[in-house]
């Protein structure tokens, strides 16, 4: 899944000389928290609702007036993403820099924007359920070919795989969660156990 699959476009932007109160209105009217700032069509900064609140707070040493220009409070330089970046790359950047959005540029032009909420949507799409399927969860030794052995057995049973998620849960072991298009996963689990797989779901009933 790439950034271009989840980014929002077109992007709502403001100019560097926009007043803080006008930027506030833009955020309020569109229900957004992140606005790229442009100078003559070129991306030069990002302003967030938090930037506005901190800058104008009565608690600030020198609060900005509502008429101040947005370029005084925007963040710069701007970290951007490429439309062809994988979404996990975008997520990692945002977490490392503790930022809430990445403007997406292509050939120097602003092409879209990705926020943390878009990444949550991506998570829902990756784990979501569109047609009937059941959970099958297997612990695999972290060796080449283990996942292939698992999916090979499913293919032999003509069982369609709808999604696959995996993560390393302890050294040397990978936990794989599949959504498989069958109502009868217990029969599959039984066969996988007979083949030596560690099936974590569905469980074997102890009675």
């Amino acid at each position, binding site marked *: 899944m790439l950034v271009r699959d989840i980014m929002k476009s077109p992007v709502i932007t403001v100019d560097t000389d926009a007043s803080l109160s006008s930027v506030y209105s833009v955020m309020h009217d569109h229900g957004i928290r992140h606005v790229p700032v442009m100078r003559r069509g070129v991306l030069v900064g990002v302003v967030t609702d938090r930037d506005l609140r901190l800058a104008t707070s009565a608690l600030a040493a020198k609060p900005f007036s509502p008429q101040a220009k947005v370029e005084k409070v925007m963040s710069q330089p701007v970290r951007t993403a490429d439309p062809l970046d994988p979404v996990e790359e975008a997520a990692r950047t945002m977490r490392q820099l503790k930022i809430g959005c990445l403007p997406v540029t292509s050939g120097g032009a602003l092409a879209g924007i990705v926020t943390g909420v878009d990444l949550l949507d991506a998570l829902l799409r990756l784990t979501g359920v569109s*047609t009937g399927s*059941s959970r099958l969860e297997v612990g695999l030794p972290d060796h080449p070919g283990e996942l292939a052995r698992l999916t090979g057995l499913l293919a032999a049973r*003509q069982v369609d795989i709808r999604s696959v998620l995996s993560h390393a849960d302890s050294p040397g072991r990978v936990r794989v969660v599949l959504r498989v298009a*069958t*109502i009868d996963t*217990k029969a599959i689990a039984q066969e996988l156990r007979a083949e030596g797989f560690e099936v974590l779901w569905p469980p074997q009933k102890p*009675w």
Partner: protein
Amino acid sequence: MVIDVYNPAYLAYDFGPGHPFSPIRLEMLLDLLDALGHPFHPMSPQPASREDLLTVHSEEYVSAVEAASSSGTAADPDRFGLGTPDNPIFPGMDLAGRFVVGGTLEGAHLLYYDKATTVLQLGGGMHHAQRNRASGFCIYNDLAVAIRYLLDHGSTVAYLDIDVHHGDGVQAIFYDDPSVLTISLHESGEYLFPGTGEVHELGAMYGRGRKLNLPLAPFTEPDSYLKAFTAVVPQALAWFRPDFLVVQAGADAHAADPLADLLLTTQTYETLFKRILEYGEKYCRGKVLFTLGGGYDVRSVPRVWALLYLTVHDLPVPTDLPPEWRQRWQEKLGTDLPAAMHDPETGGPAVPLREEIAAHNRRVTERLLDSLMPYWYLGV
């Protein structure tokens, strides 16, 4: 007046040896009712017509089933869900499916024209079948066809689904329809097929607040299940006041079911059936249409559905199963069958995380009721 609906043609709904959805379960049930000495004079339905099917299914899907049914193959299993491991193609599957639909539709006729107060359709309950797709052993959605018939005659319908799997087909077909209230209790889709049935699936458009889901944790026990059921179902029916109640009485929430992980007992089921009849009496003039559904453990399914039959007909529940019935089926199946109608009263297995599971189900119940309040009482 209670009327049973059944046609021996239901037994032709058979995906072949080794498939869990076996007609043997129905044969065992009928033989058990016979052995219990209850004269069984069901209404014998006609198969539903193509036009009946088209009230809820797409033309291309019905044509695909017809083609598969006569040729025995499907070009692309993924397209309509036909020819998959769950829904293998068998000759005559179109007619077998239409007989099942015809039975449930006959039940709707009997209720609508006041020939019966309560109908027990001894078959059907194909709640996974979608408008355009076979799913989870279900080819044609008999429940949706019957509900559509009642709607088209100006009625409102509540649909209650106690099968262990989410009633996704019925919910999807009526998702934006304000005249249908659906309530499904099931093992959470996070684990179990079909994966849907989350609390936040509340319906669309004017149907919002009229699609209810209680996704319960695996290993939910009778007490916790009954609490969730009782907190939601009567309140929903009291608010909606349906003309008719259609119930999918799947037996696969029983602890012994080989496909799922809830821990209900035969006693729980008897309680559920009694409560459903009581609510029907209270909120919709007793107009209840029961169908069967899932349920794959031959040791428990005939007992659960016999209890349904006995409860609906207000007949006494015997302590023991007829020995000759037990003998006969033990020989046929080569497996031991319980001697008593009910599960042993010794209680179920010791369940780890019992408290956490019950707490989870309480939270799910509260979250559902909280989400419904704006639609029910604030007129959002």
